[in-house]
């Protein structure tokens, strides 16, 4: 792109109210369209993938904006497990998932996915309580950061995956890329949401 052409485009962007996706389409390459092929996880099994999808949606549910499921957080988690997360963390995550399933069967008589949502939430609440205890212990130096419980990882990956997704970053939170100035003291109601 010639410099003049680039400037002209920026000028157009700054002058007219152009939607975010148009802007990123022009300057950031092509937008990802709807996918034709179904998602096949690389690390998670089909069952684990369903479990991850369900738990992530319980962590960030659909409200007036899409939740973790709509944002395909499960795909992000599978990607991170496959290509990013260190081996021991990955193993702890996967066995944590399996353990959640087996302990649910032991205590509830059926798998996590078959439970009513209120029961699923009750189980996650106990995991969250354990996570909070672990965090406290880390703060006091009696537990190690390396032994991150499954729900710590699950929660963190869900939050990161959701708020960096298109839905999380640009629908739930606020995302713009072209401004005419920087203002450092705007009443919060004028913006109304956190910038992603």
């Amino acid at each position: 792109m010639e410099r003049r052409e680039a400037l002209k485009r920026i000028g157009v962007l700054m002058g007219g109210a152009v939607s975010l996706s148009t802007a990123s389409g022009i300057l950031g390459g092509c937008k990802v369209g709807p996918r034709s092929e179904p998602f096949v996880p690389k690390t998670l099994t089909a069952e684990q993938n369903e479990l991850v999808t369900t738990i992530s949606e319980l962590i960030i549910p659909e409200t007036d904006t899409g939740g973790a499921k709509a944002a395909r957080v499960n795909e992000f988690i599978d990607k991170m497990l496959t290509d990013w997360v260190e081996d021991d963390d990955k193993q702890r995550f996967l066995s944590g998932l399996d353990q959640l399933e087996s302990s649910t069967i032991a205590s509830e008589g059926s798998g996590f996915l078959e439970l009513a949502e209120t029961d699923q939430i009750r189980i996650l609440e106990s995991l969250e309580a354990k996570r909070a205890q672990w965090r406290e212990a880390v703060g006091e130096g009696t537990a190690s950061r390396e032994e991150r419980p499954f729900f710590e990882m699950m929660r963190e990956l869900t939050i990161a995956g959701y708020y960096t997704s298109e839905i999380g970053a640009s629908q739930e939170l606020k995302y713009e890329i072209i401004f005419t100035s920087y203002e450092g003291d705007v009443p919060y109601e004028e913006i109304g949401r956190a910038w992603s």
Partner: protein
Amino acid sequence: MTHVLQLQWDPPTFSVQNQRRSVNLFHSLLMSVKNVYVSQGAPEYDAIVVGSGISGGFAAKELCEKGLKTIVLERGRDVVHGEDYITEHKPKWEFEFRGRGDRKLLEEEYPVQSRSSPVNESNLHWFVKDTEHPYIEVNPFTWVRGYHVGGRSIMWGRHCYRLSDLDLEANLREGVAVDWPIRYGDLQPWYDYVDDWVGINGEALGLAHLPDSQFLPPFPLNSGEQVLREAVRKSFPERYVTIGRTAILTQPHRGRAACHYCGPCSRGCSAGAYFSSQSSTLPAARATGNMTLRPNSVVHSIIYDPESGRAAGVRVVDAVTMEQLEFRAKVIFLCASTLGSTQILLNSTSTAFPDGLANSSGTLGHYLMDHHFEVGASGDLPGLEDVYYRGNRPTGIYIPRFRNLGDRATRRSDFLRGYGYQGDARREGWGRPTTGFGVALKEQLRDPGQWRVSINAFGEMLPREDNVVELDSERTDKWGIPLLRIDCTFGENEMAMRKDMMQSAVDMLEVAGCSNIATFDRNDIAPGLGIHEMGTARMGRDPKTSVLNEWNQAHDVPNLFVTDGSCMTSAGCQNPSYTYMALTARAADYAVRELKRLNI
């Protein structure tokens, strides 16, 4: 003009084709070193500039505008302004790892670059693959670089601060290293000249030790930073919280557009709102019709002509074809970055200069400096829940140096020199610590968290002879150039200063009313991370103790100028590239005057 040239790398079988001669690299690597004498015709170019980064781009502009036919030799690939900014405005969700980067790739191929926090998934293509560009760390030294047209001008942080006489007289006053051969009065008109071309925004403070530039309007401070500013002003009359002074346009300037506040500048800016070689100096050089820019041209060494006592030209290896070439000119500007230029000089050996060109003093490669940083504090700023900001401001705050300013009140007995801070205040985002899950969590994260202030000090590092770079005697890179061995450590002065850098940060956050103050001090801090390498071909008054004179001209070789950070006699605590620009423009002006007087 006929030169008799002493070459040390050519096999006896090369062919002379005009002024450029190709030789078989494979052959030459196998051949033992020989001295070969050949005759040459008149040089094809008036000037050679090595490197196209901040200093090389400026040299090209100045020399071309003054009418010199100039070839710019750049080792990396070409980067076309706009078109090649492949990640510009790309949203997070379109990155494979959402901006975090490919951990395995970083560990395997970018183990050095990825130590530096500004390096991320969206700008990784501007940093060298460490596996392709090895060097030897005798002690840890993080050499962060980009090899392409524009060099690090594409991904630099754009902070620009003038040196003052407090900095330029410090060595003399304290008996450290050698005296700078220049004072602020020598630099000031050239800083002004650079301002007019580049466009630097900031707030004028009238401080003698941090002279004002000719500023474009500053970016505003946000509400949190205002609180810090007022509190610090009240409790510490000698400290100022001001906006970062940066080479970013807050209004249109010389054909470049003002900032549009998209945020991640280091991906490249097709609007040209910040200074880079692409947005500013290279188009100016190109417009004269005098510039030839040759990417993929790895300068191997400088050819010295013992008869005239001049540099005759440079030897180049084409990075793609591996062909060996030579280019000749009347004057050479070495702007390959501090370590790049020093490597070239060390590799330019001859009977006259067995230890590297222009190294009769033996100081070439010594006195390597950086800035030491990643020490400071952050804290929560209570209140201000009903205010926020709009736009991604491409800079933060700056707190100018307030230690050892030459008066009693600011004098420290525990260290020499001083430091400044960069930082900002912002409201926490979705990554902040939270508990729970479900609708309540989502609602909580829809709003920003509390304000948090963070300040990070940049301190001066003293020049020490034993902080040195050398050529390895055995290993060479792909282009036949001996690897650099870097042996550099921080000293006691830096370590003593770091304690104060942390404590002063805490003091300022406390008076601002911050709670939960957390200090930080990067425990693996080692030179290089500041990305401000300097000093290995220093300027000085005495040819016996320095490489360059007051015009950045080699004492030993009058038509050789080195205008990147290697010329720095001391480091100051200011981000240095702006000074390289001023020194480069000043040296180019001098060189062209001397050429016209037939002195070089």
